[in-house]
């Protein structure tokens, strides 16, 4: 049995991650990657969701190197048939902030300067009270946390989960208005046209026209999601 949760995420602090770096300006696109959401929701390496990973790749406080382990961390979610879609903004505002090297986590030793002025950069962040929406597709009932932390500043956000009625499936040509991770859909569906949202590590696509099997609801017109989405990496 497939259960689809429609989740709303409200920011309670400003959200920042670098979608783009334009010189000293770091821009946050109002879209949250599905990999990031899996970590934020606590789905990775969790006993509760039966997604524990091997000791060698386990999620620890100390990271010896800055190398992501998406494949090792997300494959257990496929085994549990849990899938999270990227989140798009329902409503949002942006703010510009200036930061200094002096108190940045990604610390860079400052060059010796003659004057007592710090090096700086600017971040375009998403303001508190902005709203996002994403979907969680699962074969079993999930109890997701109410408060999560997201982005480079570990900003607090509130998650409101609504369980949708039992979805129906159909195979046809359809348009998915919600953002998708192309790697996770293109092997099972024929993707015809889409808009790209450039972001690392995998750019997302939205307004996707595709052919294949999809979930739909009788009373909810705006939700059509492809069936059989799962995390895929290079084979």
């Amino acid at each position, binding site marked *: 049995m497939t259960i689809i949760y429609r989740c709303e995420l409200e920011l309670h602090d400003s959200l920042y991650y670098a979608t783009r770096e334009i010189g000293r300006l770091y821009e946050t696109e109002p879209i949250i990657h599905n990999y990031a959401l899996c970590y934020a929701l606590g789905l990775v390496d969790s006993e509760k969701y039966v997604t524990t990973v091997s000791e060698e790749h386990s999620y*620890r406080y*100390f990271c010896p190197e800055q190398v992501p382990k998406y494949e090792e961390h997300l494959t257990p979610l496929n085994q549990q048939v849990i899938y999270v879609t990227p989140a798009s903004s329902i409503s949002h505002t942006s703010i510009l902030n200036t930061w200094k090297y002096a108190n940045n986590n990604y610390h860079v030793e400052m060059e010796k300067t003659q004057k007592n002025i710090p090096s700086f950069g600017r971040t375009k962040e998403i303001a508190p009270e902005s709203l996002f929406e994403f979907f969680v597709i699962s074969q079993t009932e999930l109890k997701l*946390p109410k408060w999560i932390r997201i982005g480079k500043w570990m900003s607090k956000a509130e998650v409101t989960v609504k369980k949708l009625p039992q979805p129906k499936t159909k195979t046809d040509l359809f348009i998915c208005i919600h953002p998708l991770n192309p790697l996770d859909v293109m092997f099972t569906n024929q993707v015809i046209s889409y808009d790209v949202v450039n972001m690392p590590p995998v750019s997302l696509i939205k307004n996707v026209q595709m052919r294949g099997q999809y979930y739909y609801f009788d009373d909810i017109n705006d939700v059509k999601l492809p069936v059989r989405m799962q995390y895929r990496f290079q084979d």
Partner: protein
Amino acid sequence: MSFLKTVEAKFFHSEIPYKPMGKYVHFLTIRVTESYPLFQTDSELNKSRVRAGIKDKITISRLTMFKRKQSTPERLVGRELLRNYGLMSAEECEYNVKFAMNNPDCIIYGFAIGDSGSEKSKVVVDTAFSIKSFDESHETFTLNAPFENGTMASKGENGSKVGEVTSRINQQDHIKPQVFFPSIVTLKDPTEASFLYVFNNILRTRHYGAQTTRTGRVRNELIGVIFADGEIVSNLRWTQAIYDHMKNNNTLYSPDPLNEDEVFTSAKASISTLMEDEFIVHEDFVGDKFAALLKEVKSITANEEELKKMLKKADDEAKAYAKVHIKGKDKDKDKAAAK
């Protein structure tokens, strides 16, 4: 060795775990300005437009205290103590320059060093919002830099022309005294010693914001501690609940500052109500229960021998953790040796 009697041992780990284990302790603080602090970037005070309350849906501009502007002074206070009692030297560990990676500061508050790896912070602080709006919480000051005789006109100092009026004049917004910032400090996976270490840092920190201004005096009033198995309500939601509560009780005096006692009463009442909506396991120390804990903590942090014992315990735990789990440096050395 255990320090506390008012808190059950089950809320603490016996050693610092290497991965998140789902124990959380939340310190409920109200940060009260006692002077004219500055929290700014871009030469403007930080502020944010958000809803006034949960019930009162109008939008207001609030002053904000960005997260790292709260945690940095607190960790610096802890570092100062570690150095004072000989548990850390200025040479081996300097904040944001060189992290020794094996002391309580590095392990509890985290670090990131390009090639030697990073330790995630176990202390998480969120942006705090003022209860009242920006317009009621700031003042604009005109600053000048007069000559020694107290006037702005030159008497010929430093080769200047006599009678010339200096242009050293500027305007700056300052946060008023008696502005309240409810802020929750979260510590993940505490041991008893790391709990006391962070607690002590919060209690002792008296200055926040631009350090050069000498006016950033802020007092931390702790109103409780909550042990839980997950995250609790946000600063923003708590602030909004306090705003609603105070508005209902007609204690939002405009344009006068808020009454401190009334703020604490509303803060306690609203956190209790908000915690009822949480669906996690939690044990709250608020009111009398917290008073007993606070008294016990203060008896440790105000007594030199006890404080030393606590810092030593925190240091031993950090060293033990670093030895087992932080191998980055040694590995590199081994690799280099192998080559």
